């Protein structure tokens, strides 16, 4: 549920409105006074911080109706703002909401400071274990599973979308199963990309950074060991992703996913494949409506991966942890996650609903395949857990930027790798 395009803007807006946001949340603690309905002094108001895209509005209304005395005050802000405001509020010791969304990108930073959150295990979290995907559960708990930071929300199983018409022109298979077979490994994928580039002039993918990230996310350890040791230099997974990505410079279009160029590139058929989680499908539809019916979707080479997905946590500043726990466990129970998904929300993290017709028979006229949901369900169960560490994102940014310089032709592979490693060492020692 990450919105890349909005992240930069969100960060900017965050700086300017942080004051307002904090002022805004300061009054929620004492806002029972202005509840017009039910003037019951036992009314509990739960403040909830989310960024757009969770799709919980209808469910929250329903919960309020079925649970008199509970009021939910949903406050939405941009992705980066929510996390920065939460960190500020936790550090300040006041102003945090009763429930806050936490994306996996920030998760390890919060996991390192468990004192700031109610341990959901103390509230009965053990019962949740069997409902959610294993990797999601492992993400949200500490090593010995005595601490649970939040209730899992969605997952972002990665699949590969490809332009069937360009594949056909290049003499590649177009049937999803045959594509998956032909491109079972990344090397085969890159070979196919070279063929495609020679035959059609189109590129295989948008840029090296995205290829690198897709490969990196399929295994672990990546940059850090479980005990926090920095191993990016020796990590087999990192080297494997780096070597493959740097060998594919010729078939990369060199277009960053977070820019307006990406949309123009998709619309113009500049590149033939895109790796994406379900929530990103909408981006293709929005940016290139004219390519409807030209796309198909299949498994990624060498398995799946995860991109995005969150948790609903209860900061220890909250005075109503039980009420908050009841709400979030209800919201993220399998039945409700399925309903969220049916209303065009993100993909459920609860495997027991994957066999439901709503998922198995999900289809979209934009894409040729008529069993999209089944493919996602399959990909979701392939995701394996890997420890990341709180500095995973900054280090990943350094490697992705280094790949960018190779693509721009300003650095050789060695210069780029060494530059990223040196800067990473500096940053993690601060």
């Amino acid at each position, binding site marked *: 549920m990450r919105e890349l395009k909005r992240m*930069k803007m969100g960060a900017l807006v965050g700086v300017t409105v942080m004051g307002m946001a904090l002022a805004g949340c300061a009054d929620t603690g004492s806002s029972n006074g202005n509840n017009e309905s039910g003037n019951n002094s036992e009314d509990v108001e739960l403040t909830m911080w989310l960024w757009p895209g969770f799709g919980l509005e209808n469910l929250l209304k329903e919960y309020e109706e079925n649970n008199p005395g509970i009021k939910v005050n949903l406050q939405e802000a941009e992705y980066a703002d929510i996390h920065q405001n939460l960190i500020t509020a936790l550090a300040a010791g006041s102003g945090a909401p009763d429930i806050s969304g936490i994306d996996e990108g920030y998760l390890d930073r919060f996991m*390192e400071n468990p004192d700031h959150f109610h341990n959901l295990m103390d509230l009965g979290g053990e019962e949740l274990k069997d409902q959610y995907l294993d990797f999601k559960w492992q993400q949200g708990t500490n090593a010995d599973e005595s601490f649970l930071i939040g209730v899992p929300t969605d997952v972002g199983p990665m699949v590969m979308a490809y332009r069937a018409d360009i594949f056909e022109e290049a003499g590649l298979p177009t049937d999803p199963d045959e594509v998956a077979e032909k491109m079972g490994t990344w090397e085969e994928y890159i070979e196919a990309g070279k063929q495609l580039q020679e035959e059609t002039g189109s590129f295989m993918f948008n840029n090296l950074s995205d290829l690198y990230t897709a490969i990196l996310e399929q295994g672990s350890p990546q940059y850090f060991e479980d005990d926090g040791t920095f191993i990016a230099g020796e990590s087999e997974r990192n080297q494997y992703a780096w070597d493959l990505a740097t060998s594919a410079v010729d078939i990369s279009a060199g277009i960053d996913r977070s820019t307006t160029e990406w949309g*123009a*590139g998709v619309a113009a058929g500049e590149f033939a494949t895109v790796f994406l989680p379900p929530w990103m499908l909408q981006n293709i539809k929005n940016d290139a409506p004219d390519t409807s019916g030209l796309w198909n979707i299949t498994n990624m080479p060498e398995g799946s991966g995860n991109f995005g997905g969150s948790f609903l946590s209860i900061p220890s500043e909250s005075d109503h942890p039980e009420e908050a726990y009841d709400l979030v466990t209800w919201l993220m129970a399998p039945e409700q996650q399925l309903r969220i998904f049916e209303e065009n929300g993100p993909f459920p993290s609860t495997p027991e609903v994957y066999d439901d017709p709503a998922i198995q028979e999900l289809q979209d006229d934009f894409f040729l395949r008529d069993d999209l949901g089944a493919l996602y369900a399959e990909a979701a169960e392939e995701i394996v857990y890997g420890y990341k560490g709180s500095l995973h994102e900054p280090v990943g940014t350094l490697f992705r930027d280094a790949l*960018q310089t190779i693509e721009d032709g300003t650095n050789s592979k060695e210069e780029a790798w060494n530059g990223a490693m040196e800067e990473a060492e500096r940053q993690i020692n601060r």
Partner: protein
Amino acid sequence: MTNNIAVKQEKRNKVKVYNQKKTDRNTGWLFISPFFILFGIFGVFPLIFTAFLSLHRWDILGTREFIGFENYINLFVNDPLFWKTLGNTISIWLMSTIPQLIIALMIAFFLNQAFLKGKTLFRLGIFVPNVTSVVAVGIVFSAMFGTQFGVINYVINLVGLDSINWKGSYLGTHVAIAAMVLWRWVGYNTIIYLAGLQSISKDIYEASTIDGANKFQQLIYITIPMLRPIIIFTVIQSTIGGLQLFAEPLIFGEGGNYQGLTMTLYLYQEAFTRFSFGYAAAIAWMIFFIIIIISLVNLFISQRIKSA
């Protein structure tokens, strides 16, 4: 008894007079206090707290560890990226400020001509970019400076030249960011110059016209010398703005070689994406010292110009 009352009365009067003075003084303090209270909260306290933080290692959620001057030492001996951001900032500042002030001066001179019709419309038009949201400007310019599908490369291709990789080269990134700053601030400086121009007496121009000076000679020998204090003001303004450049590179992207990373953006990333608040605080103090140095240079040069 009457005597006694009179004494009491006198005492009371004395007390009253004394109180009145005190009240006046307190009222005075009260009137000026909002500034000092706000400045204390938002100016002095952060300043002191930042200095305190810069001697620590702190990720804001965890514990704070005192490490002395390690952050500052690292900045000097083990952080080439910081010095790169200083270079980037100065380069982008020069590339935006110098053309910007020259263009603004020329537009102001043009707008001040007697023959021009519809002056208000032009003045309004030139100032509009300045009230545009910086985020909107950033997004539109980023799209225009796109490498593959940007309108500027499209025009360059039409002329027959090769596309420029705006986001992938030092010069490209600096030019693109400088263009945003220039577009947004040219109007502001124009209006200031225009106000300065209008304060120059028409008699001088008339006299020079009679002496046979043409428009260009008037610009060089009358307008610019008489605008000197205004020019110094705009230079100082642009210096302050240029050293704080943040939003434009944030939206445009800093590039793989960090060629678009400015000092304040680096500070922001250190604090809010890497959560090294101690190190970010040290960077903030470094920026403070750098601005002091540049201000002193500025002061020195402008005093020379004044006395020239």
